[in-house]
């Protein structure tokens, strides 16, 4: 019998935070003992915007992802720390060539209405996800599966997809290329199973409370649009015995400061984000609740390599890259714990050592001196300064960063940058057309925990290659990476690809994203992870310490 204490939490005694403080968390065999748990196990999570849909195959955007991860479970799922673990499949075999995956489903797998969850359900669901009629916008998650592209484009029927059931509980998926991150993809909503009978009975309305049959730890209880979505524990979930939270309520609170006030009023356990401009105040007043952790995203600006002044101008681009002081940008401008970055793949990606350019180890003075040298080399001077536009979509944060970059270029190089602010869709269109852009706001949040999600953006044919970047070596390497099976070699190839991309300077890296939110210190059973995926099924709420004493309420524990 192991008795242990959870390391996190228990901030300074008598902290300034007026929120109820938790009793000490006592775990027994990895589970909290009943006497430390709050009577009411109902978690209230702020969730940004109203989710676009609860149909896992149509869903996009972060808010619906949070809810769908509680409602459904893929063949694989994620542990609190983000590791891939068995989900609806209890185990799997991968063939030697890495192209055939055989999944053995749990015998006790069931839908929330009690129906058995079978391999046939997955065949139906993955075919539906790829069906052009479904019009899933995450169809590209299926690309590794054999014939997925042809099915998605309507050239082949859905039964040509490389997904078959070998028997009631055995599923086989064949791939086009060995895709080392394929198990990660299976935890994505676009590969979740949907319940065929209720889908056929209810059509578009199948995702409504009462109609929605799901296979995750929770099921849909209520959905008041733009007010709240209520989930209740699914008694038929295979891990139901370990699920402690009885209910989860998701509140779509779009306004960050409203969300903060709702949290401060004690009506929320978990915020979606926090206001950008209140970091210092939050750090002082909510030290136990404020959680800042690395997120799988890079924030950068792109150069349009198809347009002056950036055609064939490596020196100029490098000068612009070196002239900005990222520490000042994150410390003084964005001010929210973002991590200054010089390379593309953000920290925290599993089993990857990023390619760090040599100028990272220089002092900022050395970088600026080199920047001035290259700027002059590129033919610019005080008499003939660079004139350039920085384009960004409407947002206070983008504006601040763009303004800071413009002034750093002015100060270090004497370059004259003007800011162009555009409404979101206009900006997207301009960026895509590559006609009017020069320097533009960009960035990427990874779809799966693998450097490939970042590197593939720089393939000449990638849809988001708005830089007009084209390097045949990079294209060839990306091709090799997708068919490479040996992890060590693949890792080295990806590092080499990243090194070449950074060397070519198609973009100006600024920082790696962080997630920042407030979490009631009584809520436990979750961990930071780069994907920012937090399943409610492992969480629980501790009792509040009695307010008057300020000390932990004595808890009856043997080994304390």
């Amino acid at each position, binding site marked *: 019998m192991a008795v242990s204490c959870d390391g996190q939490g228990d901030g300074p005694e008598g902290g300034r935070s007026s929120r109820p403080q938790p009793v000490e968390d006592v775990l027994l065999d990895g589970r909290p003992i009943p006497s430390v748990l709050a009577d009411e196990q109902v978690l209230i999570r702020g969730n940004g915007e*109203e989710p*676009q*849909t*609860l*149909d896992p195959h*149509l869903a*996009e955007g972060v808010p619906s992802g949070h809810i769908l991860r509680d409602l459904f479970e893929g063949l694989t799922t994620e542990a609190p720390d983000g590791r891939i673990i068995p989900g609806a499949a209890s185990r799997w075999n991968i063939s030697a060539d890495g192209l055939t995956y055989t999944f053995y489903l749990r015998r006790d797998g069931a839908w929330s209405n009690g129906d058995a969850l079978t391999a046939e359900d997955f065949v139906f669901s993955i075919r539906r996800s790829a069906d*052009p*009629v*479904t*019009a*899933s*916008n995450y*169809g*590209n998650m299926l690309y590794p599966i054999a014939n997925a*592209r042809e099915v*998605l*484009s*309507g050239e082949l029927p859905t039964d040509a997809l490389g997904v078959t059931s070998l028997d009631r509980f055995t599923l086989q998926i064949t791939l086009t290329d060995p895709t080392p991150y394929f198990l990660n993809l299976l935890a994505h909503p676009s590969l979740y199973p949907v319940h065929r009978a209720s889908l056929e009975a209810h059509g*578009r*309305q199948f*995702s*409504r409370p009462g109609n929605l049959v799901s296979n995750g730890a929770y099921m849909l209880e209520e959905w*008041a*649009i*733009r*007010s*709240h979505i209520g989930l209740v524990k699914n008694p038929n979930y295979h891990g139901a015995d370990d699920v402690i939270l009885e209910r989860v309520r998701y*509140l*779509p*609170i*779009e*306004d960050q*400061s*409203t969300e903060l*006030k*709702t949290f*401060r*009023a004690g*009506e929320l356990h978990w915020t979606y984000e926090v206001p950008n401009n209140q970091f210092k105040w939050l750090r002082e007043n909510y030290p136990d609740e404020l959680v800042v952790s690395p997120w799988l995203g890079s924030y950068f600006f792109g150069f349009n390599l198809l347009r002056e002044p950036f055609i064939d101008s490596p020196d100029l681009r490098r000068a612009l890259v070196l002239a900005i002081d990222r520490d000042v940008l994150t410390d003084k401008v964005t001010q929210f714990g973002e991590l200054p970055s010089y390379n593309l793949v953000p920290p925290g990606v599993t089993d990857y050592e990023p390619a760090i350019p040599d100028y990272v180890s220089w002092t900022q003075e050395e970088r600026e001196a080199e920047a001035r040298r290259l700027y002059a080399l590129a033919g610019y001077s005080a008499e003939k300064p660079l004139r350039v536009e920085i384009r960004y979509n409407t947002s206070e944060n983008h504006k601040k960063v763009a303004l800071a970059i413009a002034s750093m270029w002015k100060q270090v190089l004497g370059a004259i940058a003007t800011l162009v602010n555009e*409404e*979101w*869709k*206009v900006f*997207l*269109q*301009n960026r*895509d057309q590559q006609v009017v852009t020069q320097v533009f706001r960009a*960035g990427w949040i990874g*779809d799966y925990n693998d450097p490939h999600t970042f590197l593939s953006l720089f393939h000449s044919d990638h*849809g*988001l290659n708005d830089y007009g970047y084209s390097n045949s070596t990079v294209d060839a390497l990306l091709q090799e990476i997708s068919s490479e099976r040996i992890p060590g070699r693949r890792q080295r190839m990806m590092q080499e690809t990243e090194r070449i991309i950074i060397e070519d300077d198609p973009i100006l890296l600024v920082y790696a994203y962080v997630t920042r939110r407030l979490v009631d210190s009584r809520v436990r059973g979750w961990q930071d992870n780069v994907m920012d995926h937090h399943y409610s099924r492992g969480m629980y709420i501790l009792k509040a310490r009695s307010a008057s004493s300020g000390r932990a309420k004595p808890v009856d524990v043997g080994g304390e």
Partner: protein
Amino acid sequence: MIQEDIVRHGISRLVGLVPTLLMLITIAFFLIRVAPGGPFDSEKPLPPEIRANLDAKYHLDEPLIQQYFRYLGQILVLDFGPSYQYKDWTVNELIARGFPVSLTIGALAMVLAFVLGTLIGITAALRQNSWVDYGAMGFAMLGMSIPNFVIAPALILLLAVNAGWLPAGGWDWSIQRMVLPVITLALPVIAYIARLTRGSMIEVLHSNYIRTARSKGLPKRIVIRRHALKPALLPVISYMGPATAGLITGSVIVEQIYSIPGIGSYFVQGALNRDYTLVMGVVIFYGVIIIVLNFIVDMLYAWLNPRIRYDEGR
């Protein structure tokens, strides 16, 4: 005779509604499509084949004019179509669920504003240039000039976060959750109505027929109630039409700050997301409401103001 005039006037106004709406639909339909970008453009661009699937599903691959007539056909059977953004819902459902919320807080705010606004206005008018008048008009000035995105967070901070008397936001049809949004919505309207009432009341009180009534020895209270009130409220009534329309169709800012599921946000969100069907649905719905409310105001006006009645009757 008088009834007949009002009815005839009413019918002619109703008939005028159809071309107005058709014009509104046509302009809105093409205007939103002229805006750059489409409903499915996002940070992560879609592969062409997936984009094609989506366009086909929502008939966006058809020629624009065909889409227009398809849409008109749908409107005839009152089907606004599926929302592009909220894919599980039709625009009809979104409006049907959001409008009762906006209507409730909007109507409550209007009632509050009308009662308080006219009371303050009349009080100020009767004590013109006294400290009561200055106080009331000072308040009105403040109410009109402080924007609701300042008032609302201040109210939340004061009454919800610090005092803990009311919830900070959210919606469940309880009175507690209506208090702050109703007050926020009502404040500028109270202020405006108070100023309007005061002004017109002062004007009426100085008119000849009131002076006559007073000189005949009628008590002041009766003169005001029987003779001055109705004409003094005329400008207020004509202001209330558009004001009510504005209040019950929801305010984006108030909905965002109090996190209320009304329909105000759909207009802005729909436009920003190029959710064509949602924007169209809301535009048409607003159009109908504004036309109907203006119509009601017209009718009320005719009832309150004999001059209009006689002009039309002749």
